[in-house]
């Protein structure tokens, strides 16, 4: 476990670390963001989910003052100030991470640490261990590192000073599954110690695995901001079943099944919310093969189209 914070448990739960209010941004004639609003509380891992090009990176860049919004506002720790000092308590991992190729990994970590004289890299050692960065990689020049190791160094740059707000743009890109798991534990620990995390991703399953709430972005607009539980209950998921015998005629009447498509002895079922009733019904039949693929972003968008909850998407 990472070192514990001095923050009193419970106190941070009421604090809002980040508020994004009605952000809009155009690049020429292209609309990148339109009236995007959400808030991230201390101790929360907030998922920011959307397909590539939805506007996730633009939002993060506006939060950091890298990109200027056409309208709207960002409040960091309740303050509207965009001064550089506000970034003292922020850690950021860009989606397209680039580091100085001619510096060694260790020099990179030291270099970025020196930008925060009041926040030393207290977590570096633990992070190096947790992310399994070998000692040899630290003395190697960045340009000779694998993509995965570079990503680990980027994560450590973002987190080594134990920031109060962590902004992560597609953080698991290039990490192998074991390291991804270790990374998730680190992020969960950050939240447990009262740090706020904005976790931007286009992969639904990883957001679902660690986030408490999620904002879903499409074409620059927020489709919904939901708790993960609510999202799961509204999500339409797809089941593919191949039967040995005849397909039961009453499958479409099973609770949760919103749509069914039959071809020969195969059926595709779209199930909303709880899948147990469907599984129980299928257990009474002669199933040859059963596939329950990972839900994808498009499944969520489909859910919201069908529900008509977001008419403008």
């Amino acid at each position, binding site marked *: 476990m990472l070192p514990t914070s001095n923050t009193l448990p419970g106190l941070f739960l009421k604090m809002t670390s980040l508020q994004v209010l009605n952000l809009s941004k155009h690049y020429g004639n292209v609309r990148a963001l339109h009236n995007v609003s959400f808030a991230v509380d201390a101790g929360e891992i907030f998922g920011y989910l959307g397909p590539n090009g939805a506007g996730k990176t633009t939002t993060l*860049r506006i939060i*950091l*003052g*890298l*990109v*200027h919004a056409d309208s709207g506002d960002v409040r960091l720790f309740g303050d509207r100030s965009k*001064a*550089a*000092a*506000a*970034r*003292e308590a*922020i850690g*950021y991992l*860009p989606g*397209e*991470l*680039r*580091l*100085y190729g*001619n510096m060694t990994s260790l020099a990179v970590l030291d*270099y*970025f640490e*020196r*930008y*925060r004289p009041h926040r030393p890299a207290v977590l570096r050692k633990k992070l190096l261990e947790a992310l399994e960065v070998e000692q040899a990689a630290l003395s190697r020049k960045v340009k000779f590192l694998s993509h995965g190791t570079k990503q680990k160094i*980027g994560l450590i*740059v973002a987190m080594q000073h134990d920031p109060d707000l962590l*902004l992560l743009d597609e953080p698991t890109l290039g990490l192998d599954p074991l390291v991804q798991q270790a990374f998730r534990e680190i992020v969960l620990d950050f939240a447990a110690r009262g740090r706020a995390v904005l976790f931007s991703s286009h992969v639904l399953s990883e957001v679902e695995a660690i986030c408490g709430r999620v904002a879903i972005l499409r074409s620059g607009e927020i489709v919904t901001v939901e708790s993960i539980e609510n999202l799961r209950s509204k999500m339409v998921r797809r089941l593919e079943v191949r039967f040995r015998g005849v397909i039961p005629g009453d499958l479409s009447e099973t609770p949760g099944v919103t749509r069914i498509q039959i071809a020969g002895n195969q059926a595709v079922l779209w199930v909303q919310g709880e899948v147990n009733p469907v599984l129980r019904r299928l257990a009474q039949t002669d199933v040859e093969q059963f596939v329950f693929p990972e839900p994808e972003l498009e499944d969520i968008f489909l859910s919201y189209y069908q529900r008509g909850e977001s008419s403008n998407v």
Partner: protein
Amino acid sequence: MFNLLRRLMARHAFFLLFSLALLGGFQYLICAAVSSVNVSGAIEELMKNLPPLTRSLVGEQFFSGLTTRGILAFGWNHPIALALGTAVGIVLAARAIAGEIESGVLELLLSQPLSRMSYFLTHTTFAIFSLAVLSVSGVAGTFIGQEVFGLEPFEAGALLKLALNFFLLHCAWFALTMAFSVFGRESGRVSTAGFLVALVSYVVQVIGKLWPSSAFLLPYSLHSYYSPQAILVENTMEGKPLLVLFSISLICTGFAAWRFRRRDIP
């Protein structure tokens, strides 16, 4: 700010040391060349064989009467000396913003507690320091060369004025290229634009001096405000050219700073 400054020194150390050594060495070699042969006689002989137009250009512009001092002054107007100063000014400016955007590091850098103004000022300070050291190294080359080869030394004031003139000319190239760099995303394009402007300025100066009917172009060339001959030989350099170069540097830097604060990164 010191963190970034240290990084800039490490990054540009080789390029700068090479430039310093080259300019200083070049001025030293000019002194060596002047002392080793009867350069004035040789050039006078050479000039007799040149067409009148070329003679007027080469003689009046660069050799200032074919004296030893005139030839030493020519060392400061030589394309190698000018290209070195211009390269340092332009490369530093192109790399400062467009180059860092191109490398992709600027996004991570400006997400640290480092304001854009601090970033900009650090790069500008570093460039000013580099150009100042470059100018001093060139002057040191001339001074040491004169001492070593027993040439009549220039007055300290003249050498200082020369260093200031050289420094301000290349500060202007830095500032002008910074004004391009704040719009750019690729250092190659920004450098090319900077070098093209410098080249046009040089050509305009030559044309303006060659043909009296084109003399009206001279005020539009930054090279017209740089005159080693006027400082070292004729002692006619006034403050106005220095003021023009300083003003252009200030205006371009101010504009670049203003624009950099407003642009989106990357």
